[in-house]
């Protein structure tokens, strides 16, 4: 009964509602439009607020205000809109507020196009706005996973008082898949937020939400406190999926939509006698270095596949540290690598002749 057919973009919304989110602020952009359409209808039905802002700059600042007021709140956009949000995201991190940001990535740079891409990996995982900070970044690869990731995203945001970004692309957003809603959401184990600026009735001390820290010594302390939090996240929250990894010699590394292509490549390779496997990072930050350390002595090389000119591959190289060869295959600008071209690259790497 709980199994329904759902579009990826709608699943972001359904998952958010199941996770207890009742506030959405955003500005329209393709290819994520079904998500705001869905929430514009659903949120008012359940006593929530859907508000179309005048820009992504405003949207993220509305998120800042709603998060300061203690709400589970989200926004959603696609690449150019996420660029506009960077100032606000930096302030949200600085003020240590929880929120969830969806980026249904499209081809860039500039206006680019609305085709699926992964060119915002650096922006998502390396900070993005000004200052020394990190977002927790989740990369679902199926509609089912979108639902569970939304719960996870809100829980992690509240736990660490840090924004969580969930990245997808146009394919994942448009894709219809059956999802099992059984056991998702419902518990709503939202922590209390004694720091929230809700008006001080019933409280002796004022609450102040702020990222200004004018004395350098104090701001250094603030930054070190963030660093400690990020260290804890790196230790506790690395998530990844392994596919055929146990006896793999040649390991593909791919996230999101591309990981689905990569799985097809692993299957094909296995049939033809190549011991291939896959590491699919689920948290892009913290990057799952544990997965690499586990297999580093058993494998002969890694092939990173992305819909970009090569961004995640830098993190793969950082994990591998020259201990094994790391190869890259990418299609930028809105193109998706095919099973065939990835397989050809894998064969080259494995030293298998291409003919016949």
């Amino acid at each position, binding site marked *: 009964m709980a199994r329904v057919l759902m579009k990826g973009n709608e699943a972001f919304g359904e998952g958010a509602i199941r996770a207890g989110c009742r*506030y959405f*602020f955003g500005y329209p952009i393709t290819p994520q439009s079904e998500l705001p359409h869905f929430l514009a209808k659903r949120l008012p039905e359940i006593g929530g*607020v859907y*508000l179309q*802002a*005048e*820009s992504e*700059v*405003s*949207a993220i*600042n*509305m*998120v*800042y*205000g*709603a*998060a*300061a*007021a*203690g*709400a589970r*709140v989200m926004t959603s956009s696609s690449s150019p809109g996420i660029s506009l949000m960077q*100032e*606000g995201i930096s*302030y949200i991190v600085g*003020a240590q507020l929880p929120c969830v940001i969806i980026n249904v990535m499209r081809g860039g740079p500039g206006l680019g196009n609305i085709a699926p891409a992964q060119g915002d990996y650096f922006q998502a995982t390396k900070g993005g706005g000004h200052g020394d900070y990190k977002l927790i970044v989740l990369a679902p690869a199926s509609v089912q996973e979108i639902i569970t990731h939304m719960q996870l995203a809100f829980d992690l945001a509240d736990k660490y008082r840090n924004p969580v970004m969930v990245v997808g692309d146009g394919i994942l957003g448009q894709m219809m898949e059956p999802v099992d809603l059984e056991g998702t959401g419902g518990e709503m184990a939202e922590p209390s937020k004694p720091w929230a*600026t*809700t*008006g*001080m*009735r*019933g409280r002796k001390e*004022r*609450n*102040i*939400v*702020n*990222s*200004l820290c004018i004395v350098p010594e104090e701001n250094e302390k603030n930054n070190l406190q963030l660093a400690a939090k990020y260290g804890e996240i790196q230790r506790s929250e690395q998530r990844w999926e392994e596919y055929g990894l146990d006896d793999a010699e040649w390991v593909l590394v791919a996230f999101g939509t591309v990981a689905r292509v990569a799985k097809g490549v692993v299957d094909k390779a296995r049939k033809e006698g190549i011991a291939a496997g896959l590491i699919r990072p689920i948290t892009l930050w913290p990057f799952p270095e544990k997965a690499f350390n586990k297999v580093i002595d058993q494998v002969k090389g890694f092939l990173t596949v992305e819909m970009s000119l090569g961004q995640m591959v830098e993190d793969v190289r950082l994990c591998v540290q020259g201990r094994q060869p790391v190869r890259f295959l990418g299609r930028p600008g809105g193109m998706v690598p095919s099973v065939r071209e990835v397989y050809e690259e894998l064969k080259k790497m494995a030293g298998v002749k291409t003919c016949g």
Partner: protein
Amino acid sequence: MAKIFQRPAALTGKAFHYCPGCTHGIVHRIIAQCIDELGIREDTIGVCPVGCSVFAYEYFNCDMIEAAHGRAPAVATGVKRVLPDRVVFTYQGDGDLAAIGTAEVVHAAARGEKITTIFINNAVFGMTGGQMAPTTLVGQKTTTTPKGRDRETTGSPLRVAELLSTVEGAVYVARVSVHNPASVIRAKKAIKKAFEVQLQGLGFAIVEVLSTCPTNWGLSPVEALEWLEKNMVPIFPLGEFRKPAEWDKNGTGEGASC
């Protein structure tokens, strides 16, 4: 002996950091008096700007949020939508509200967002060193208009109260000044009305306050007050530009126009 003058409960008592003769402090005090008189301190959340009043969260004795430069109306919107029964106000300078944050305030007004905005027009960017603001007078010397603001190349002052009075959702729009005791009393009345509009759930309310920046104007505190009256008031006429239609019908909110 009865105390006839004391610090409003809505001020923390921390000494203001403002320059001598700066009228930011006067405006803080009258906002705090209004909050006290309306009995809303414990239900109020203030949003401060980036500008000389960036530390306003240290002065107002209620929950406070520090926003990014110009974004206070968007932040206030987020708070108000989550907590519709609370009182939310923004305090913003003319760089904050009339330059970088123009979109945010216009659209908060257009949505009829039920928040109160206090807008400090001192005709310069105070905090960053006295640069030209959108409100700088034609001919006024600033650090970025060393020969005086030239209409030809930099335009003429933006009249925010007039601009916003064309917006339906902005149900209360007034411009006041604080250059002498009588104008301070009128300013306080307007600010109180701007909070009452919110308490009555009528829509967006804004009070533009003509204010001094003696430091960047290169004037003494007294000269600055005179300069404001002589030069700013003729360009930025004082008064109530919009009042809620409801008030005309049932008489609430009447009182001396400001």
